[in-house]
């Protein structure tokens, strides 16, 4: 038996986390079923040529919200409330290893859902991905980082698993309302659209649209250096949310329940 390193410790803890998630039927159902259930509903909406983009954006968005964000908030709070997080904090694993291991099973599920989504879109909507579709990967990776950090930050304000239903609402609402997922951004006044671009789900949806349909979620067509600038801006917003979330986590994250 070789000495464990950070990677092997992450995998060990992720494996235990997977077992725990699978034994929690509620959490498993929400994480596994929400994204694929939402997608067929969207597909019924009139979207014209943009349907593959709409489906993929919807899938990526809901998967980040319900698989990564909501599930991680509830599971992290549950582990904290049963003092398991504090036990892990006493272990040989680094704190960041513990926090990464908790999200790892959720990232695997996210990847599976996105791959299945791509397959379904390609088969049913006759979609042929180009190299631009790699932007969906960028959206998923940076989005996952941002929503991982935001989930950990949300646990700071969440006392119990039950109260997570309430404490996750603000970010869920912001994500749904200002990303173009549920409300057409054209309905918003211009200054609001500008602000919406700084919210943590807009860049994800925007990057998926650029990757799949070649247009922005706002409907603008961008190409050349304008495209590069848009992609970098979206990426910067997601990195910004990641950094902001981790800053709060570093200062305020709790490894044990409040006494």
């Amino acid at each position, binding site marked *: *038996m070789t*000495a*464990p390193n950070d990677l*092997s*410790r992450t995998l*060990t*803890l992720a*494996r*235990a986390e997977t*077992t*725990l998630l699978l*034994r*929690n039927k509620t959490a498993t159902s929400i994480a596994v079923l929400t994204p694929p259930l939402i997608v067929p509903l969207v597909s019924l909406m009139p979207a014209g040529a943009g349907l593959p983009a709409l489906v993929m954006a919807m899938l990526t968005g809901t998967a980040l919200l319900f698989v990564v964000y909501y599930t991680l908030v509830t599971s992290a709070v549950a*582990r904290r409330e*049963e*003092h*398991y*997080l*504090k*036990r892990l*904090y*006493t*272990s*040989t*694993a*680094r*704190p*960041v290893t513990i*926090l990464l291991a908790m999200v790892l099973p959720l990232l695997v599920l996210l990847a599976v859902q996105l791959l299945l989504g791509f397959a379904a879109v390609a088969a049913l909507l006759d979609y042929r991905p180009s190299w631009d579709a790699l932007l969906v990967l960028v959206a998923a990776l940076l989005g996952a980082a941002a929503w991982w950090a935001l989930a950990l930050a949300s646990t700071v304000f969440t006392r119990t698993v039950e109260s997570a239903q309430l404490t996750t609402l603000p970010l869920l609402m912001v994500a749904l309302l200002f990303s173009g997922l549920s409300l057409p951004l054209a309905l918003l006044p211009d200054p609001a659209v500008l602000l919406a671009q700084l919210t943590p789900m807009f860049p994800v949806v925007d990057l998926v649209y650029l990757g799949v349909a070649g247009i922005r979620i706002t409907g603008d067509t961008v190409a050349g250096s304008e495209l590069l600038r848009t992609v970098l801006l979206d990426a910067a917003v997601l990195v910004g949310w990641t950094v902001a979330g981790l800053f709060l*986590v*570093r*200062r*305020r*994250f*709790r*490894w*044990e329940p409040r*006494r």
Partner: protein
Amino acid sequence: MTFSARTDLTVDVRGLRRRYASQGRRGGRDTGFEAVRGIDLQIRRGELYALLGTNGAGKTSSLEVIEGLARPSAGTVQLLGHDPYADRQLVRPRIGIMLQEAGFPGALTVTELARTWQRLLVDPRPVEDVLQQVGLDHRRTVAIASLSGGEQRRLDLALAIMGRPEVIFLDEPTTGLDPQSRRTTWELIRGLLAEQTSVVLTTHYLEEAEVLADRIGIMHEGRIVREGTLAEIVKSQPSQISFSLDTGIDETGLTRFAGAALHTEEHAGHRRLRLETFDPQRVLGLLLSWAGDAIRLSDLHVVPGSLEQAFLEIAASTDLGTTDSTDHQTQPEMIA
């Protein structure tokens, strides 16, 4: 290999203080609560140090800093020659920690958790051996949530010893155990000491400290107010000679016993007298000759000074100007 007196020290704590920031109040005067108010602690290899004290005395707050789970507000901690907070990657593989709250995910089975824990360790002992040592081998496939409180405590101990620690922290390891399991745990702790492990133990069972500890520290209001071997601590406590006397018998003669303090308690027409002395043999002789054949000393007890007596005496003393810790909202400094 020989150890110099210096390298023999596994725990070296100097002037340790820990202050919790108070919640809610921002700005203005710091209304935080200082749970640990300057403790010094040195522990050698193969030594068991028992840290005693009432609830809220600061035992767990001190342990968390010594273990490296939190930063001290002031003072220094050296654990196996390193700062346990800054150098956690160096220190953690060499120590074992058993927290007061076990912290188990109830949905995992005993073996699943034990294997997970084992894979995190650098030089782990076999899971089967460790579970057998704490008497849980027959419960291997049971969900942790189904274990009794005592069984969970023993699982916790199993995980703490799995990494062959050089220093092990046991925060109330036998709470909730039946007398037999408690003795099994004591045997296990003696085994660790024989392997030169340093053991830091907190307990509410004073008998446990009496049986196991090489040295004892009694904490009160954030300070170690008494420290020494059991004999040294008990030496400060007088022996107690107590007996009942029929009413009507004049006890004034007893007050002449030099060096003995006389206490009288009257309860429901029943009179019980107690003599406190550091020379029980002489005072008992005087008492018996005073009574002679005429006076009956019923229910006569001679009890040597005890750890419990010392503990209660310290617990009863209050330091003026301190705040109550029990209902204090605290904010431990444990950050990622």
